[in-house]
Structures are given as C-alpha cells and as structure tokens.
C-alpha cells in the first residue's frame, strides 16, 4: 500500500479503515447471482469511489463501506471480490 506512483490493485477487504479507493474491477463471476445483483444494486461498479468506514467488532468482519451516498455492510469474503486502487489523501 505504499507504492508512491503506481496505483496498485488490492482487494477491498485489505483497504485500511478510514481510507478511500476507486473500484477497478469486480469479480462478478466469483459471486453467486443474488450476491452479485445485490452488490450492483448497492451501486458497486467499476470507477465508483468507496470508503471503508467501520469493521465489525469480532474478527474485523463485516465491513461497513460507503458507496456513493449510501453506507452498506458486506462480509469480508465478498469485499475480497472487489478490486480497488487506494486514493491518497
């Protein structure tokens, strides 16, 4: 996460709490239909900016993520299917 010039691609589950990132790719095929649909409905899409707000108290799961103007909770395993490039503030 400290490559200064090259924006690197990490899973949303590896984003530090409180930081923002742009969605680079979503592994839709790796999710089942219902889950993929729900993520799309929440607004997950390539190019969208997300912010990791909170982590669940037990096992740092689930994740509270801000997508657009909405905050949603998703599990770590689904967050892993969302590839993001961190945005430096």
């Amino acid at each position, binding site marked *: 996460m400290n490559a200064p010039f090259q924006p690197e691609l990490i899973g949303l589950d590896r984003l530090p709490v409180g930081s923002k990132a742009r969605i680079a790719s979503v592994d839709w095929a790796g999710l089942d239909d219902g889950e993929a649909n729900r993520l799309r409905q929440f*607004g997950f899409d390539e190019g969208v900016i997300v912010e990791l707000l909170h982590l669940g108290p037990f096992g740092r799961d689930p994740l509270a993520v801000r997508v657009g103007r909405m905050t949603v909770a998703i599990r770590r*395993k689904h967050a892993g299917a969302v590839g993001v490039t961190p945005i430096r503030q």
Partner: protein
Amino acid sequence: MTPLPLVAVAGNPNAGKSALFNALTGARQKVGNYPGVTVERHSGRLTLADGRPVEMVDLPGSYSLEPVSPDEAVTRDVLLGRQQGERQPDALIVVLDASNLDNHLRFCLQVIELGLPTIVALNMVDLAKRDGLELDATVLERELGVPVIETVAVRRKGIAELQQSLDDMLSAPFCGVHKPVKSDLIHLQRRAREISAAAVISETPVRRWTHRLDAVLLHPILGPLILAAIMFIMFQAVFAWSEAPKAWIQGGIDWLAVQATVVLPAGFLRSLVVDGAIAGVGAVVTFLPQILILFFFILLLEGTGYMVRAAFLMDRLMHGVGLSGRAFIPLLSSFACAVPGIMATRTIDDPKDRLTTILVAPLMTCSARLPVYTLIIAAFIPNSRLAWGVGLQGVVMFALYITGICGALLAALVLRRGVLKGASGGFMMELPKYQWPLLKDVVLGILTRAQIFLKRAGTIILGTTIILWALASLPQAAPGQKQSDVSIAGAIGRGIETVVRPIGFNHDISMALLPAMAAREVAVSAIATVYSIDSPGEGAGASSLQEKLQHRWSLATALAFLAWFVFAPQCISTIAVTRRETNGWKWPLFMVSYLFVLAYIFAGATYWTAVALGL
C-alpha cells in the same frame, strides 16, 4: 361495483416510503397477506379533494425489479400486474430519498420505464439540506419526464401537493401502454448518477450526524457494550415501567370480579364468569403493559435505524453459528412474538440460513411467555435491590432471556452441523441514516399490537379458558374432595403428570401445559382458573394467585417450570406460521419435537440441581 382506483407506493428500502404512506392514509390502514407468499400487504385509503376514495398499497422496499428476496418479487409482480390477488395499480408514487439519489433513481428509472402513470416524491429534502445538499426538482422532472414533488413525509410537507398531483393524474384518461423493461442494471445505474449529478445545485461537505453516531455505536469496543446496555435497559424497563399500569389493570379486574359476584347468583353461571372468564382472561390482560413496553423498544430500535447496526455488530458471532447478521432482526422481533419474527426471516436470502433462523426463533423469549415468567418470578424471587437500582427480579428475567439466546445459538450451531449442513450465505445490508422516528408512527405500531393482543385475549384465550374451566369444573366434586382431583382436566393432568413428574412438575402444572399450546400466556390463566375453582371466594386476581403458588409449589418446581418455558414447545400460531413458511409439516414437526426434548432435559436438570442444592 367498479373497484376503487389503486395507487401503489414503491421505492428503495429506507426511502421513507412507509412514513409517506402513513402521511397519505393516516390511521386507516389494513395489514393483510399476499396469497401464497408470506409478504405482508399494507393497504389504506385516501380521499381526494373531490371526495373520491382511492385505495393505496405500500409495496415492500426494493432496490430493483430483479428480485433477490421474496419481498422484492412481490413488488415486481404487483408493478407488472402479475401478482395473484392484486390488480395492476392505476398509478404509482415512487419515493426517493433526496440524499441518496444516485442509488434510488435507478429503481425509479426502472419503474418509470414500465409506462404506468407515475409521480415521484422527492422525500426527506430537509435531511438532505441538513447534510449540505441542495437539489433542483425541476431538473429531475425534466430528466425523468414525470411530476416530481418535494416532500418531508414525517412533517406532512408536500403531502397536499402530492394529493393534488395524484388527483390530476387519476382524472386524466390513461390508455395503458406497457413497455417491456429492457435496460440493464449497470446502464440504469450510470444514467441515475448522471441525473443525480445534474440535479445537485450545491453540495457542502458537512460531518454528518450518522457518521458521528456510527463512530461510537459501531466502535469495536464501545459498540458491543452499548448494544448489551440497550438490551439490558430494555428488559429492566419491561419490569420497572409496567408496575403502575399493571396495578391499575389488576384493580379494574378485581373490581369486575367483585361486581360479577354480587350481581350473579351463586352457582354455575357465576363460576363460569368469575372463575372462568374474569380470572383467566384477567390474569393475561394484566401483562398488556409489559408487552407494549417491549414492542415500544423494538419499534424505536427499528425506527431509529439502530436495529441494522445491531445486526452489523452481531453478524460475525451469528456467522460463527451458521446464521447471518440478518437473522438478528427476525430473532429480536421474536422477543415480541415468534410469528412476526418467523415472517421477518423472508429478508434472509439464503434458504438454509433462513430455515435455521425459523427453527431457532421460538427460543427467543416471546412476550407471551412474559406473563408466565413474571408470575413465577414475582412469586418466588425476592424483590431485592442489588445495586444502582438494579433489581434481582430483573436480573433473573434477564438471565432467562440470555438462556434462550444461548439455547438458540447452540441449536443453530448443531443444526448447521447436522440436518442443515452447508455453507452459510452472505450478509449484505444497507446501513440507513439515523433518524428520530415519529411518535405518531410508534404509537400507531403499539396500538396495533395492543389490539392484536386484546383480540387474542378475547378469543383464543377466553375460549381455551372457558373450555378448561368446564373440564376443571366437571364433574362436580363431592364435599371433602378436591375439585382438581375429580374433574376431567384432573384426569388429563394425571396422564401428563406421569410424563413430567420426574422433572418436578406437579398436578396443577400438568393441567396447564396442554392449554398453553393454544397460546403460551394461557398457562397463567389456566393455573388461575384451576386454583380459582379449587378455592372459590378467594378473589380472582393474580396477586392472590402469587400467594397460592407460594403455598403449593416448591422453589425447585418453580425454577423447573421457568426452565421449561425457555424451551417450551410452541404455541399453535407458531407451528402454523412455520408450516406456511416451510411449505409442509416436516419442519414444524421437527421443531416441536426438538424443542420438547430440550425443554424436558433442561427443566429436569434445573429441578434436580435445585433439589440437590436443597432449594
């Protein structure tokens, strides 16, 4: 008779749809069910300015017309005119949360594409302003091609304009063009973002309230502590706040019993009214305040948006036993009643997650068990204060709830390892903005519950109480004999007693167990009726019932009885709703048997431990 024009209110979850529906229809609402599915149908009536009545229906919140849950399937089917038992709406009101347009516009665009006459309610504009967001409704109107009206449903702002617009729309002839839905989600989403960006006049970043609250309430350490504290306060309040109103109701019932005794001649009729109806139903009605306090908390937690946070905090733990955080809401509702709790499981997408949640939901202490707990605790647990105003009785009550919760978690764990083996599904939920629920909406919710409870008291409970009274009164005991030994109920009780004797249950309890299947609170009225018949002239109230219990039951028996009711086989309504939800008898029968076995083992263990400790 031509049916009234039908107007459906649709929108994303958390768009303030129900508040708008309430503002439009007031208290004239009906809650029913869609045939074949267990999705509630909320309908109401609205009178237009010229006096024409319109039927309104509040559709379940949906993110899109591609359903993920059964609720969303109903919304889609109603909008497409395919839902059994519902005609296609003549007009639609789509509700948008002004501060979440990017997302809500997508569903709105999809609905507008259907081609039905549509009005958009741009709701919660006040909250958007508070968050530093100013929107131009005329831009939206131009882009969407339908009327857009700014509303603040909870303050009734814009409601008159909405009605006017609806009036115009229903007066205009409509020729019913149906366009097929073709746009895909991603395309719609991008279009939604464009429109949303175009409609923004100004946006000042402000630290939002929800953000600040979440920093505390979802804090890894503070969050769970606050959740535990809220649960604890809730159960303490159920006890502490209800004392005064309970006493008033008790006073009224005692007065009624005295009046009936004076008016009616001694004999059959007086016994039926005083010992049967008044003693039985009265004993249950005194618990109304506690049940309403519990519902008050649940409605408040749901209305503020905290309930979803609780699900977030609990998800990992629930996941550990094979459930999802989503199960937290149905399970918490089951504290009020397992029937709405089991119905609420329809928001769980994964079938095995859902079935597990249904099977363990009855272990959550429902409000119908409160009367039983309260009576036994009041009779056997000293009302001493421990510290900081925390009472021992409240602590015991809390412990009973905790036992139920632990039982549910363990049962889920075992079920997921055994009969319902398989990977557990996901947890995806929106965390809505916090808001202060309208007092009116909370009161409306509580009144509905009170009505349902009193209706039960007047029908099922009255009916079973009278039947039990008859079984307990006939045949008449000869002088010197005890009525409960001679009667038919006594004989049935003796049969049950042979089974439950080893776990410390006496004859009176055995007689109460069977009618308690009708509704659990009947256990109290059944015991009240039995004792009232056995000792006429002692008064019918629960206060004297307490004293009778203290004389007739040992502490070990009382504790075993409490333990039994933690796991007690469900009431008939729970079994019926489980059958409906699981489409067959297999799972309800499984549920009844496993809970019966657990209840038996747990009550037995409690009894023998208590006896061994010399209690």
